[in-house]
């Protein structure tokens, strides 16, 4: 017979993580999610929490080159990783081609889901062009937008794909 094991003392973990190119060191609690770490500790509030169970995609960020749900990762897991968030997409105040394509095609309304879409697409477009509407819809299907009906998003993906592959 054993007493239930419970957390006696959580000293926290020192992590070192590169976020949008700059290295940050923080002590984080065991259970702090990556999304909350970015939002609360680094105050990078562009990453949004829409469902916290990995369906809506609003919290999508890029970790070591791959798009992931930041609500389904712990902050302590990104120790030593390279994390990219929406705040890192455009330098010098200019919108990057993907962001411009979003704006031009009315691919956003309330904007809450937008950072997740941008990060998903950023990772996807690095892998190669997105050729047609069907492929665009497939790439978009891991993120939910309640406002636009996706028409603008599809067009933005196709435009950005042309632009970035040109």
């Amino acid at each position: 017979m054993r007493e239930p094991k419970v957390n006696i003392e959580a000293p926290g973990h020192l992590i070192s993580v590169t976020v949008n190119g700059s290295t940050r060191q923080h002590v984080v609690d065991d259970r702090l999610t990556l999304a909350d770490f970015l939002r609360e500790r680094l105050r990078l509030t562009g990453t949004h929490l829409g469902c916290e169970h990995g369906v809506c995609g609003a919290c999508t960020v890029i970790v070591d080159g791959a798009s992931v749900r930041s609500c389904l990762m712990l902050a302590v897991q990104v120790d030593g990783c390279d994390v990219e968030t929406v705040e890192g997409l455009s330098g010098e105040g200019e919108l990057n081609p993907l962001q411009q394509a979003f704006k031009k095609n009315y691919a956003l309304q309330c904007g809450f889901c937008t950072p997740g879409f941008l990060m998903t697409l950023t990772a996807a477009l690095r892998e190669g062009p997105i050729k047609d509407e069907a492929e665009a819809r497939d790439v978009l299907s891991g993120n939910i937008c309640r406002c636009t009906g996706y028409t603008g998003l599809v067009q933005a993906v196709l435009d950005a794909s042309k632009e970035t592959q040109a």
Partner: protein
Amino acid sequence: MKPGKFVYHAPRELDEALAMLHEYGDEAKVLAGGQSLMPMLNFRLAQIDHLIDINRIEAELTEINWAADTVAIPALVRQRHVERSAQVAERLPILTEALGQVAHPQIRNRGTICGSLAHADPAAELPSVMSVLDATFTVASARGTRTIPVADFFQFHLTTAMEPDELLLRVRINLPGPGTLSVFREFATRRGDFALAGVAAQCQLDTAGMVTACRIAAAGVSSTPQRLEQVEDMLIGQRLADDVLRDAESLARDAVDPTGDIHASAAYRKRLTGVLLRRALADVRTQREVSHA
């Protein structure tokens, strides 16, 4: 929707991880991709005291190991990696095909093959695929390693034959011989959803188009992936003619006893299993026609 408290461990060595599992047993959970466990922790459906993250283990757990007639997929191989492997597409096309239907790329980027199998959701794609591939599961604990055949591995919803102190080290698959044809078919309400039902089928056909061997498993219609042995028996020695397909459909429909829920009635799931099987077998037939064309 914040997880309850737990102590996070990130062992660097497999032995260290196994020692922790040995110590904490039922109060610990292994974190690989986390794409099933983390939502449960966030919902506080799962509450654990120790989370053992195996992602930092420096042993060779991230590479697919190819041998002459088997392939082993160790614990940290991500689904996306397998999905994109040209070698997998060539040697195990059913796995590639099924992975393309697992959730969405962001989930597959983190999710591991072994993690999904250890999670043992009967509606998931991979358990039924492993059933037809006749996979064996190598599980490790501080007490040693053992292998479990797929028929024994899946026990119930989210429940496998693994003891609380065991970790799924790798899944090993015998590579299908030449001429083996396989199909994974599922039907889901939305792209990336868990299927209302799914069917994995692998058949060997002789030069005359006669089925000489076959394995069929259904997903989402039982508390584990369900082998459809009655259908397999019936198909052996048959050509995949339309009437045979219809017989297979009705056998499959009768062989499963699913539970109805808010998404679909039990009757629908039974019918759907039959339909998916018929279509899977038709695909097999088409594959053969193409390869013989």
